[in-house]
C-alpha cells in the first residue's frame, strides 16, 4: 500500500513508518499540515494517516481542504485526545476513522488495511461468500453448506464485519465500534463471549472459520478459499 503519514512528532512518525516498511508498505512522511495537504493532492495514496494537531495547518483543516479539492483518499486521524467531541469533529470534517495515541501498531495496521480495502460507494454487495458459508445481506440469512444458521442481530453484524475483512485482522476495538457502537473498552469481555457463541453456531464441528489473534483481535478465514 502507498501510505501518506502526516505527523510532526518524530518518534511517532518513526514508529509508524518503520512498522509500515517492515510489513512491505511504502510510507511517505510529511512533517506539517501544509506539506501533508500538498502531497495528498499531488499524488494518489491508498490511505492517509493524519495527526490532529499539526503545525501550519491542523488535521481538520487538511482533510477539509482535501475533500474540497475532490480528493477522496481515506483518512485515519491520530490524536492525543480521547474525547467524544474530537472523534465527531474528525469524522464531520471528512475523516474516515480515528485512533487515539498511544496505540498498538497492529491496531493501526488493521484499520489502515480496512480503510484501503473499503469498497467504493455504490458498489454494495448483497451476498458475502467464504468457503461454504453464505451471508445474504438483504434477506439477513446465513447458510453453511446450504443449511440455515439462526443468528441474533448482533451476531449477524459481527459475522458480517469479519466476513467483509476476510483474511485480515479485525481488532477487538474495531468490532466494539462497528458492531455495538461502543467507543470505549468495557472491562467485561463482551466481544469474546459473542465470538464464542458465534463460533458455536457457525462451526458446527467443521473447521473453525474465526481465528483468534492473541492480544489483538480476530481473523475470518475460510479453509478452502484463496485467502
Amino acid at each position, binding site marked *: 500500500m502507498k501510505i501518506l503519514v502526516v505527523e510532526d512528532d518524530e518518534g511517532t512518525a518513526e514508529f509508524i513508518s518503520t512498522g509500515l516498511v517492515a510489513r512491505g508498505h511504502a510510507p511517505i512522511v510529511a512533517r506539517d499540515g501544509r506539506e501533508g495537504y500538498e502531497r495528498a493532492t499531488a499524488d494518489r495514496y491508498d490511505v492517509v494517516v493524519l495527526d490532529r494537531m499539526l503545525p501550519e495547518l491542523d488535521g481538520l483543516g487538511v482533510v477539509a481542504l482535501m475533500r474540497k479539492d475532490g480528493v477522496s483518499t481515506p483518512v485515519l486521524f491520530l490524536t492525543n*485526545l*480521547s*474525547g*467524544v*467531541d474530537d472523534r*465527531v469533529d474528525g469524522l464531520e470534517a471528512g475523516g474516515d476513522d480515528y485512533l*487515539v495515541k*498511544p496505540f498498538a501498531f497492529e491496531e493501526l495496521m488493521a484499520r489502515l488495511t480496512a480503510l484501503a480495502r473499503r469498497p467504493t460507494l455504490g458498489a454494495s454487495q448483497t451476498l458475502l461468500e467464504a468457503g461454504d458459508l453464505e451471508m445474504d445481506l438483504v434477506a439477513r440469512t446465513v447458510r453453511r453448506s446450504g443449511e440455515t444458521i439462526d443468528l441474533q442481530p*448482533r451476531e449477524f453484524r459481527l459475522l458480517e464485519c469479519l466476513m467483509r475483512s476476510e483474511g485480515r485482522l479485525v481488532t477487538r476495538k474495531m468490532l466494539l465500534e462497528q458492531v*455495538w*457502537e*461502543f*467507543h*470505549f473498552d*468495557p*472491562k*467485561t*469481555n*463482551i466481544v*469474546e*463471549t*459473542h465470538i*464464542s*457463541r458465534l463460533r458455536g453456531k457457525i462451526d458446527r464441528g467443521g473447521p473453525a472459520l474465526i481465528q483468534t489473534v492473541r492480544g489483538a483481535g480476530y481473523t475470518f478465514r475460510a479453509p478452502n478459499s484463496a485467502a
Partner: protein
Amino acid sequence: MPRIRLLRTASFRLAAVYLALFTASALALGGFVYASVRHEILTDFDERIREEANALAGAFAESGRDRLAAVIEARGSSGAGFAYGLAGPDGERLAGTLRGPSGGAGAAGWIEATEAESDEAPEGKPEVVRSLVTRLSDGSLLVVGDERRRSDDILRGVLTAFGWAVAATLALGTLGGLWLSAQFLGRIDAMRQTARRLMDGDWSRRIPLTSADDDLSALARTFNRLFDRIEKLLLANKQVSADIAHDLRKPLAGVLRRLEAARDDPSSDAARVAITAAIADVEGVLETFGALLRIGQVEAGARRAAFRPLDLADVAREVVDAFAPAAEDEGKTLVARFEAPLPMSGDKELLVQMIANLIDNALRHTPAGVRIEVGGEPIPAGVQLSVGDDGPGVGPGEMAAIFRRFYRSGDTERTPGSGLGLALVAAIADLHSLECRASDNRPGLRVTLATAAEEA
C-alpha cells in the same frame, strides 16, 4: 463613606426619582386647587360688595342723597364689615370714610381705595381697600369696599398647609428612600462580603437568605447554587490531584522496579516476563489517564450541544443485550426490565458508556450466581434508571464514596480496575441532570439514576 454609598444605591436613586415625580405632580395639583379656590373666594368677595352697593343705590333712588348719607354713617359705625364713601358730583366728601377716585369724576368700577381716617392704621400707612365705585343718578359717587385681609388670610392658610404637606412628603420620602436603600444595601453587602470570603478561599460560605421571597432572594439563591458548583469543582480538582499522585505512583514505581531488574540480565526469561508486566503496568496508567481525561471532558459539559431526544430504556436494553452473554458465561443473570419508554434528551454515546460502566461494575464486584437487573420507569421529574444486584453490596458508609474518583471498595490490591468507572458514571449522570444514588438492594447494591427535581 457609608452615607454617600447609601445615596448612590440604585434603590435610593429610584426612590429619589419617584419622590421628585410625586412632588412635581403634587405641586401641579396644589397649584390648580389654589388657583380655583382663590378665584372662587375673590368672586364671592366682589359679589358681596356689589350686593351692598346695589342695596345702597336702591336706598338712594328711594329716599335721596341725604338719607343715603345717613344710612352710610349708621352702617359704617356699626362695623358690619364694609367701608363706605359718598362724594358729591364736585368731589366733596359727604359721608363715610372711603375716599373715592381723586378728581376722577365720571369713573366707575373697581378701584383700590384708601380710608381717609383710619383708626386701625395709625402708622399713616393707609389701608388699601378693594372698592366698587357707583355713579348715582345725581352725579355723586358711592364707594363701597371691604378689606381683602380675610380672604387673603384664607388663601395664605391654604398655601401654608400645602407647603407643609409637600415638605413632610419630601422628608418622609427621603427618609423612606434612605431606609429602603439601607435595607437593600445591607443585603447587597451580605452578598459582596460572601463573595469576598469565597475569593479568600472560604468556599463553604454562602449568602445568608432572608425570609423575604423576592427577586433579591432569588438572586442570592442562584448565586449560592453557583457557589455550590464552584466548590464541588474545586474539591474535585483538589481530590484528583491528590489521587493522581497517589494512584499513579505505585504502578510507575512498579514499572521502574521491573525494568531495572530486566536491565541486569536482558536476555533471561525473567526479563521478558518483567518487560511484559511493565508494559501491562504502563497500559494501566494510560488507561487511567484516558479515563481521567474523559471524566474531565464530560464534566466540562461541552457535550450538551450534541443532546438528542432518545429513549433511555432502548439504550439500556441495547447495552444489556451486549453484556448478557458475558454475564451468562460468568454464571450470572443480567436482565433488562422496562415497562414504559423513558424519553429524555441526551448524548447516546455517553449514556451507553454510563450504563455499560454500571453493568461492568456490578459484574466485577459480585460472585457467580447473582442476578443483575437493569430497570427503570418514568417519574414526575423525568426518568429513573437503576442497576441492582443481589451480591454482597457495599457498607452503608461507602454508599456515597463509590462515586468518587479512585475509590475502590475493600481490598484494593485484589480488586481490578482504576476506580474511575463509577466516577465517570456520576459525571455523565450529572451532565444529564440525573442524580446518582447508591442504596441497599436487600441484599446487594442498587445504583439509581433519577432526573433531579427542578430547583426553583
